[in-house]
């Protein structure tokens, strides 16, 4: 309440002092980040990353070895507490059986292995940073993994034209929270490396809320009546990369997956 009041006061003061509502543009390179954009919304721009084990498994899980013994400790799965509200993903029985099959065959089935776009919400908590570029009418989320990205439409909501990997995102502000309604997904992406999955009926409602300058609370409600008995929710903090020189470094992983995908089509496999 107090911080909100002081932000308003600062805004009013800066408008009175000549309409400069954006101190950062006046002194580029200064570490001060404006808490609000010029249209008065929370400023989510920055480079963010999750620090948890959700990407290995959204649910509670023990540490476990890699499926490839050659990768030793490097390829093993760290244990960790889950991020699913209530602890378990409410699968329908058939879907739970398929999830288990996915996990057993994860090296050949996980779309991440093939460098495919990760979809939503998985892109948010992969072990790679992503950058929010909060422009006046559109919010870009650019993910380091596989050069995937999406733009959140903040204008009149649009219907998904076709099913896609990253979905169609319509955003709105609910008080201090950015709420993103995502539809139009294909059935090709997973939620994590544990084989948690969805159908093309997936509907994801995300909420991004700054809890302080460097922490962003991420919540996602997941609906898919073909796969789950009810909607379920994940939540986790995202951490700002505060290094002054932080930036995304292209992770164009296609070339790391080509031997796996096309190796059998080489002219001479011994080459």
């Amino acid at each position, binding site marked *: 309440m107090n911080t909100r009041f002081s932000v308003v006061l600062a805004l009013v003061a800066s408008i009175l002092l000549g309409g400069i509502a954006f101190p950062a543009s006046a002194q580029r390179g200064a570490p001060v980040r404006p808490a609000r954009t010029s249209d008065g919304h929370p400023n989510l721009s920055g480079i963010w990353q999750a620090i948890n084990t959700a990407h290995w498994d959204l649910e509670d899980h023990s540490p476990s070895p890699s499926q490839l013994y050659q990768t030793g400790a490097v390829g093993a799965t760290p244990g960790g507490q889950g991020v699913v509200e209530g602890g378990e993903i409410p699968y329908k029985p058939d879907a739970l059986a398929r999830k288990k099959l996915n996990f057993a065959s994860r090296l050949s089935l996980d779309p991440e292995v093939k460098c495919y776009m990760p979809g939503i919400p998985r892109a948010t908590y992969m072990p790679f940073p992503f950058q929010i570029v909060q*422009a006046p009418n559109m919010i870009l989320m650019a993910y380091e993994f596989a050069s995937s990205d999406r733009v959140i439409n903040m204008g009149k909501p649009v219907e998904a034209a076709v099913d896609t*990997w990253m979905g169609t995102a319509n955003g709105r502000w609910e008080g201090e929270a950015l709420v993103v309604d995502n539809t139009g997904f294909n059935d090709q992406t997973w939620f994590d490396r544990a084989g948690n999955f969805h159908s093309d009926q997936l509907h994801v409602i995300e909420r991004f809320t700054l809890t302080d300058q460097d922490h962003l609370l991420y919540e996602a409600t997941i609906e898919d009546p073909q796969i789950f008995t009810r909607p379920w929710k994940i939540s986790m903090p995202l951490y700002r990369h505060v290094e002054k020189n932080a930036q995304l*470094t292209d992770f*164009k992983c296609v070339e790391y997956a080509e031997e796996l995908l096309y190796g059998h089509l080489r*002219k001479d496999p011994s080459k």
Partner: protein
Amino acid sequence: MNRLFAAGAVALALAVAPLASSPILGQQAAKAWTAPKTPWGDPDIQGWFSNLSENGTPLEKPAQFAGRNLEDIKGEELTAIKQAAQNRTVESFAGPLHAPEDWWQKDLNMVKGSQAWLITDPPDGKVPALTPEANARAAAAAEARRANPRGPSDSWEDRSLYDRCITRGLPGSMIPAIYGNSYQILQTPDYVAIRYEMIHETRIVPLDGRAHTSPKIRTYMGDARGHWEGDTLVVETMNFRDEASYRNSNGSTLRLTERFTRVGPSTVKWAVTVEDPKTWVRPWTFAMPLTIDDTQPVLEYACHEGNLGLRNILSAARSEEEAAKANK
């Protein structure tokens, strides 16, 4: 009805013509558009873009225009050149084996293309001569190919980075192809982002004056830094990977300087200066207008995910080899 309409059009043209040539009104018309600013005061170059109509414009000045300037090729002469290029492009895809004819053909409008070639400097409109070092590099690469000859589809590594859905690189990503040309520019006070539909690539350009990253970090799209010079966004990009370095230049010494200037309601002037002392004897520049087109939003192009083309090229080549063996 038609005659009435035609008569009306002539009357309108007559009524407008003297007004349009009036110097006072001309000035007022020029004043009517002022370059938009973002809420924080930077020039506003945001929007959805498509350069489709600039497709097929030759990089270098064609011999037929020797002695003439770029700005002199206009009107009917330019339209005729563009119509011919359009016809050639459509015909070049009309072989016995080709994709359906309405996939991209009906949207291709090269006739609206704005220039007869791209290079604006040096004045002769040609890519400058290669340095002795670049010639030696090309000769060594040719020798390596002779020593270890490979077919065009022995492996994915023999296909282009574009075929493999990895990158079109820079300035390749700015240059239109026959489809999938939409891109988007977004701005904040600290960053400019450019998203390309083709392959799906995003360049995020910091404007905060930070230094470039170490040359030990090399990427396909390079390391970009931007700043505003008056109304112009200047973006300098370096630290390219050699495999993607423009026109076989040297990735560690290539430097691209792009300039984006909003010059009209739907036009951003763009130019790129290409500099690599290890490849060309002097820097050179090419330019084209970028067209804001709100009807062309960027859609998701799942290039690698759907890359059946590459798989089919490789498997077809293997099948042909099997067939050749069987026929021996």
